[in-house]
């Protein structure tokens, strides 16, 4: 079976384009020369992005105009998700109340608001009630109150029901099943009505700094760079947006946040963030199977007791018999042969799940990483000129599996802390330093967000015991349900997710069943449903710090786990042209921006950077 037939048409073009890359001498570009393994092949050049190969040392860029157009706003928000839009809306509400003009610009890499949003989701409306109490009159898409709440422990063939007692974290009474992408789109409309400037299709690619080291704003992505890293005729520099303060709401594992953690040393007093990957599908089911308002969660099969994860299945009530379902796998798993995508596909065949889907049609697919670190992993939230909001620093309540309400509240608190600090800028005057707003962190710690996260802080780490899942459930039962998280200790996580993989030779490959094309599907047809696409002729945005590491380390020691944990088939190990060895092929066009590779790469060699704006998935109400 030739590897080429696994490639999508777009990735096939990518392959041929890669082969045309001119070979640059690694030494001249400051990349350390690598040991030669196979006599007939050189260390392949994979990465061409300027973040690895700087343009000021690249002769092809000599004489190219690199100056950027700049504009001044009062507040710039990176990311039009629940946190970013809540912050923008709150700022405008405050400005309206005090009859002040505040210019708020939101940049978003998706081509339209909501296109990169993916979540279960059971929304707790607490934050929305505070932000826009008349959301119902305004037509917010909260159409499905939760009516039934089912929790199960699955074995291969059976199901053990777990009573959803009130007080348990995943009890959903009072919540709504939403299509978060639609809610985000609606929030975008509310923001625009209030005068927020929304710019979908433009990614924040670079953080800008004042001379004093504080954050000055961001620059959007350059366009018109060819796949080999050289400038095309259509090359144009991105634009600089300067602000008094910049709110970073990139969602889980944002790429600018990653830089900011290093630059301002924001993670020195917290544990590393831990993550999970969530894969999701939307199905139209047969009307007789449809139970609107029904929420189902499960743990157990097909994961073993030491792999954290579980499933969700929500019946929406929006006219069509739609069901949103998905599977979450903790990224601290140790078996490099584990494929979260294939666990998800085989879970759908369980006797408790399959009947709902039989005769139905799958209409959507996507995936995204989510944080699980809770309070232990929250970094410093403010720094000169900037603030971190939403899932980027990470406010997800893991046992509740909800992070939207806390993300929105963090955005609102950021707006409330920033607003009184904003100066009235005179014409043509610009600040020379960014605002540092530590009041935001203080107000967050005093709010219900912190109380909630503190109460559940020990549940996720309690899974790290010999009994795994069962130990964790016992712990939750005693210390959360009975004692409300008041125990005086705080359990630690296990360290970086990327350090948890065991070498392949110590692990057993998992035999996954073949997809049947009715309930379970192959990876590439799933990726096609996400609507993802990128401009083909641009450098791959999955950049490698060292092009030789994938084959020499990831493949050699861990059997190339990236070919299994990527939910979009971006990474493939294929034979080299001369057949003597293997090489990593990066199908960047398939990427759904989930960030899992950046998190789970055992060599931490993959650095996800933002591609040209508008690229990425085209989720519709995910």
């Amino acid at each position, binding site marked *: 079976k030739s590897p080429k037939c696994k490639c999508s048409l777009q990735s096939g073009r990518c392959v041929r384009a890669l082969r045309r890359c001119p070979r640059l001498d690694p030494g001249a570009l400051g990349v350390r020369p690598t040991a030669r393994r196979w006599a007939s092949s050189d260390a392949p050049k994979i990465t061409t992005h300027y973040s690895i190969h700087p343009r000021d040392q690249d002769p092809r860029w000599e004489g190219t105009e690199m100056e950027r157009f700049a504009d001044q706003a009062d507040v710039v928000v990176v990311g039009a998700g629940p946190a970013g839009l809540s912050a923008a809306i709150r700022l405008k509400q405050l400005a309206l109340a005090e009859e002040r003009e505040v210019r708020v610009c939101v940049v978003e890499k998706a*081509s339209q608001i909501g296109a990169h949003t993916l979540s279960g989701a059971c929304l707790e409306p607490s934050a929305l009630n505070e932000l826009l109490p008349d959301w119902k009159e305004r037509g917010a898409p909260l159409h499905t109150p939760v009516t039934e709440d089912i929790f199960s422990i699955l074995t291969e063939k059976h199901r053990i029901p777990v009573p959803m007692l009130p007080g348990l974290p995943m009890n959903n009474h009072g919540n709504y099943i939403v299509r978060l992408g639609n809610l985000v*789109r609606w929030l975008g409309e509310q923001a625009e009505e209030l005068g927020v400037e929304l710019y979908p299709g433009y990614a924040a690619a670079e953080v800008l700094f004042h001379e004093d080291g504080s954050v000055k704003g961001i620059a959007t992505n350059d366009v018109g760079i060819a796949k080999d890293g050289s400038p095309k005729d259509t090359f144009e520099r*991105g634009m600089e947006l300067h602000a008094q303060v910049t709110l970073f709401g990139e969602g889980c594992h944002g790429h600018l946040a990653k830089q900011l953690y290093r630059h301002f040393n924001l993670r020195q007093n917290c544990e590393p963030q831990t993550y999970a990957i969530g894969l999701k599908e939307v199905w139209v089911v047969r009307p007789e199977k449809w139970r609107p308002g029904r929420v189902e969660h499960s743990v157990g099969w097909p994961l073993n007791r030491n792999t954290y994860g579980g499933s969700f299945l929500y019946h929406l009530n929006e006219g069509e018999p739609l069901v949103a379902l998905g599977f979450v796998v903790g990224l601290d798993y140790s078996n490099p042969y584990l494929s979260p995508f294939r666990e998800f596909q085989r879970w759908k065949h369980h006797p408790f799940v399959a009947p709902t889907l039989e005769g139905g049609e799958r209409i959507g697919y996507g995936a995204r990483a989510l944080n699980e670190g809770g309070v232990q992993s929250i970094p410093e939230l403010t720094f000169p000129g900037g603030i971190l909001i939403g899932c980027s620093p990470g406010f997800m309540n893991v046992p509740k599996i909800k992070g939207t309400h806390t993300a929105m509240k963090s955005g609102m608190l950021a707006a409330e802390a920033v607003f009184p600090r904003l100066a009235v800028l005179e014409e043509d005057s610009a600040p020379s330093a960014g605002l540092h707003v530590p009041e935001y962190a203080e107000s967050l710690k005093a709010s219900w967000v912190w109380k909630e996260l503190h109460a559940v802080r020990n549940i996720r780490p309690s899974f790290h015991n010999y009994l795994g899942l069962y130990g964790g459930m016992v712990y939750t039962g005693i210390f959360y349900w009975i004692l409300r998280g008041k125990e005086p200790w705080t359990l630690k996580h296990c360290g970086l997710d990327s350090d948890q993989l065991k070498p392949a030779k110590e692990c057993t490959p998992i035999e996954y069943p073949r997809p049947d094309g009715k309930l379970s599907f192959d990876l590439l047809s799933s990726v096609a449903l996400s*609507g993802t696409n990128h401009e083909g002729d641009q450098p791959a945005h999955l950049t490698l710090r060292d092009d030789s590491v994938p084959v020499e380390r990831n493949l050699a020691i861990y059997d190339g786990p990236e070919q299994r944990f990527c939910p979009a088939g971006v990474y493939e190990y294929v034979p080299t042209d001369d057949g003597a060895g293997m090489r990593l092929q990066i199908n960047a066009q398939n990427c759904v921006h989930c960030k899992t590779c950046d998190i789970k790469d055992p060599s931490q060699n993959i650095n996800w950077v933002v591609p040209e704006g508008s690229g990425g998935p085209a989720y519709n109400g995910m």
Partner: protein
Amino acid sequence: MSGRVLVGVKRVIDYAVKIRVKPDHSGVVTEGVKHSMNPFCEIAVEEAVKMKEKKLIKEVVAVSCGPQQVQETIRTALAMGADRGIHVEVSAKEYESLGPLQVSKILAALAKKEEAQLIILGKQAIDGDCNQTGQMTAALLDWPQGTFASEVTLEAGHVKVVREIDGGLETIKINTPAVLTADLRLNTPRYATLPNIMKAKKKKIANVKPADLGVELASKLQVLRVDEPPQREAGVKVESVDDLVGKLKEAGRI
């Protein structure tokens, strides 16, 4: 000559999105689906803007017919360099049955009103794939047409157009005013960058109703049903040529 070029732009479902037929088979799902400017319309806009940059023409006017959302598409054209926009308001219901004939009538009326020297359109839209609007517009105006253009040279009083045809390339010379439709290789459209999007917010988009142009929107076509193409079935292997002939006869092919 007025030096004014009219460019038609259409808002279509993005080419990378998987199309889904509505459950009632009346059409395809468009609610919430990612839309973008028709790729051939982008090429048309680029060609017009290039002409303006070469000072061969004076003004580029972007036109789109449809409901409120098409204004985004006109804004993109403005960000690429068009000077002003015209939004021909068509309600969402009427838009479902809006086809090339009505659009051609609208464009013809606008061309006369704006005294356009040229109309540049994409050769076809990727949703309807009709490839009719340009040709019908030219016929209604009794103007010459240069369709499937892969190269356009504007000279005084006429246009030289290199057309992509089945047999190769055909070069024609037609008088202006004329209608041109853009094919894939005409140019590479520029990006609509953020500073230009911001500037485009200040450019004017005029609202016009089809009735003001004297155009009746009622369609003589009625869509009865929309279905997905049949699933491709596995092929059958045959052992010999006689088998093949026999199977072909069975299927009524020979």
